[in-house]
């Protein structure tokens, strides 16, 4: 017994030791010791990860003194936010460059976690970037991140059905309703218009597009104007879409992917989604190939259509010990040339307008170029360090409106009171 347990313990100890050695970082080759290593944290890169690596390799060959290590975070945006807040609050310096969702920059800037990068982009150069992302990375007049790639909500429609019944892509919401009613009455198993209505961030993106498309907004300067007449009308319209059957009730639990599947199975006439869906529908073997069209979202009569801005921004960790190298990488990744390469290889939409004039890009990626005007009008969600709190208030109230649990008047009035309470913290 005694010897057996001794052997057992010895074996376990050895195993632990081996694991420990196995986990400890391998020594890099000595020739690299002279180079400074910077760590770039980002979410999942779309497509083949080795393609993005070749872009970083180019940076390394242009800057032989720097080597870049990339580290991928979990796919969910919430988890990435939690990772950054916990680590940066603790002053973590083990990463230098970070990619941020468009709604985080003011929060991180206010918390003092990211470096002021105003000096990286000259005044003149700034006008080359789309206005939406520029607004989103600016806090108190200073630039805290550089827009990396851009995204915005768009309307997908079934070209074949619209052609068959003689409709053109709708410019107003009433036009969409009219087309949807006409066509779904004549086609079997076809939903009119689907969008994302589960209680989550995507719902806020959808609702704000209706608000903005009716001339409304959440904040005006420092005032909370979310319970304006324009917003109430827009919210009531959304609820009405569901009650009138244009939109099936299932949207109140839907996120992007379920709606993509339903539209992709040919079960819907119109869909609001992000541009990533386009390539999936037009891939080899997709049943919808060549039968889908894309257009700016409709608006209410006499108002301009405005999409919710998405996309990611590059920032530099305030606690980075190597911020000069980190800033070089940010400059490199956001340069026109590299943005063009990323657009051609992994489909990341450039944040610089001049790239859209490039002849090669126009020839190879006409779809990306066609989104230029939509990106010009894309608007960021309220640019405030308190946005994460505000969205926690908006999500359930918006969900209540579209599920018919509360009236737009009651829900939006309560939203205004709660947001005002949040903003008091800073006064």
């Amino acid at each position, binding site marked *: 017994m005694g010897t057996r347990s001794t052997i057992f313990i010895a074996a376990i100890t050895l195993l632990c030791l081996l694991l420990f050695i196995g986990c400890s970082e391998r020594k890099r080759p000595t020739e690299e010791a002279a180079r400074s290593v910077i760590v770039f944290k980002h979410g999942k890169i779309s497509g083949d990860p080795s393609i993005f690596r070749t872009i970083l390799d180019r940076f390394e060959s242009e800057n032989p003194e720097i080597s870049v290590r990339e580290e991928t975070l979990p796919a969910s945006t*919430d988890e990435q*936010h*939690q990772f950054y*807040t916990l680590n940066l*609050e603790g002053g973590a310096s083990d990463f230098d460059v970070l990619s941020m969702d468009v709604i985080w920059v003011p*929060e991180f800037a*206010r*918390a*003092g*976690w990211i470096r002021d990068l105003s000096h990286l982009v000259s005044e003149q150069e700034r006008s080359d970037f789309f206005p939406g992302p520029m607004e989103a990375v600016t806090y108190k007049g200073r630039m805290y991140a550089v827009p990396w790639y851009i995204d915005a909500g768009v309307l997908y429609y079934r070209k074949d059905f619209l052609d068959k019944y003689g409709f053109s892509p709708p410019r107003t919401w009433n036009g969409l309703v009219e087309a949807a009613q006409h066509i779904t009455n004549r086609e079997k198993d076809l939903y009119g218009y689907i969008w994302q209505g*589960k*209680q*989550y961030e995507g719902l806020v993106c959808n609702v704000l597009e209706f608000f903005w498309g009716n001339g409304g907004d959440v904040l005006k300067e420092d005032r909370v104007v979310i319970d304006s007449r324009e917003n109430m009308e827009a919210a009531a319209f959304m609820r009405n879409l569901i009650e009138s059957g244009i939109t*099936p*009730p*299932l949207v*109140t*639990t839907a996120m992007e992917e*379920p709606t993509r*599947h*339903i539209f992709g199975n040919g*079960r819907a006439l119109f869909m609001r989604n992000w541009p990533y869906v386009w390539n999936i529908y037009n891939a080899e073997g997709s049943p919808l190939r060549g039968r889908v069209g894309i257009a700016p979202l409709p608006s209410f009569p006499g108002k301009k259509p405005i999409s919710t801005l998405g996309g990611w921004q590059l920032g530099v960790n305030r606690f980075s010990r190597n911020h000069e190298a980190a800033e070089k990488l940010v400059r490199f990744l956001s340069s026109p040339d590299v943005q063009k390469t990323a657009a051609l290889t992994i489909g990341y939409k450039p944040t610089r307008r001049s790239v859209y004039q490039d002849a090669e890009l126009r020839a190879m990626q006409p779809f990306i170029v066609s989104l230029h005007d939509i990106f010009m009008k894309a608007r960021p969600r309220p640019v405030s*360090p308190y946005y*994460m*709190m505000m969205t*926690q208030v908006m*999500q*359930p*109230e918006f*969900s*209540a409106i579209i*599920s018919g*649990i*509360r009236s737009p008047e009651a829900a939006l009035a309560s939203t205004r009171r709660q947001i005002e309470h949040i903003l008091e*913290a*800073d006064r």
Partner: protein
Amino acid sequence: MKRHNDGTPFIVPSLILIALITIYPAVYALYLSVHRKLPIFGISRFTGLDNYLFLVGDERFWNAFRNTLYFTVVSVTLELVLGLAIAVLLDKAFRMRGIVRAIVLVPWAIPTVVSAKMWEWMYNSDFGILNYLMGTDINWLGSPFWALNGAVFMDVWKTTPFVAILLMAGLQVIPRELYKAARVDGAGSLDIFRRITLPLLKPVILVVLTFRTLDAFRIFDAVYVLTGGGPANTTETLSIYAYKMLFQTLQFGYGSTLAIMVFLCVGMISLFYARLLRGGIAE
């Protein structure tokens, strides 16, 4: 030599350990709960009972409280009734009893997040299997009524096996002679169940209830994955609300106030059961 030296010095290390890992966080949460604290913005000020006063008028808190209470009462009741029925059935000798017992345990063995994802797909109103099998067109997770009950149903599916197994263990220690004697005296099955099985099973039932009530009251993962608290917070439980305040919006002060409320409720439930248990064992 003092042989009856009290053991205090010997338990001091463990007391310190317990204090460090349980009392310190609890006291710190209490401390946070009387502050307006947004650490990332460097905002931290003592606000006395402001958070608690806000909580009393916070409709979202009461909503979460009601949801949690409903979830707890309904799910625990169903789990107990079904678990008892299954336990009584499995206690009978029949062929392949071992295999059936193992199969019954399967739902409990699947990690909650995985089964919640699974149920989310089954509940989908467009391509979910539930509507397909029943021929219905119900927006399960989208309607306030069905969403919360859907979460209850999933929890019952998942946790009934746990209840059944514990109760089965309780059944097995009841002496078989009592049943035989009752039969000889001419008692019917229902009488035997009411007058022998139930009273002798009472201590086990109380233990099961304690476990299940406390777990159900703190429910988080299943509901969070299933609905995220929606639609319109109709499935938001106290733990989900506290999580959102603490970790998504980083309001450590008010988030802690919510956590303290959960703690108080759970404490009261524990005391209540502890009392019943003491009575049950003294009987």
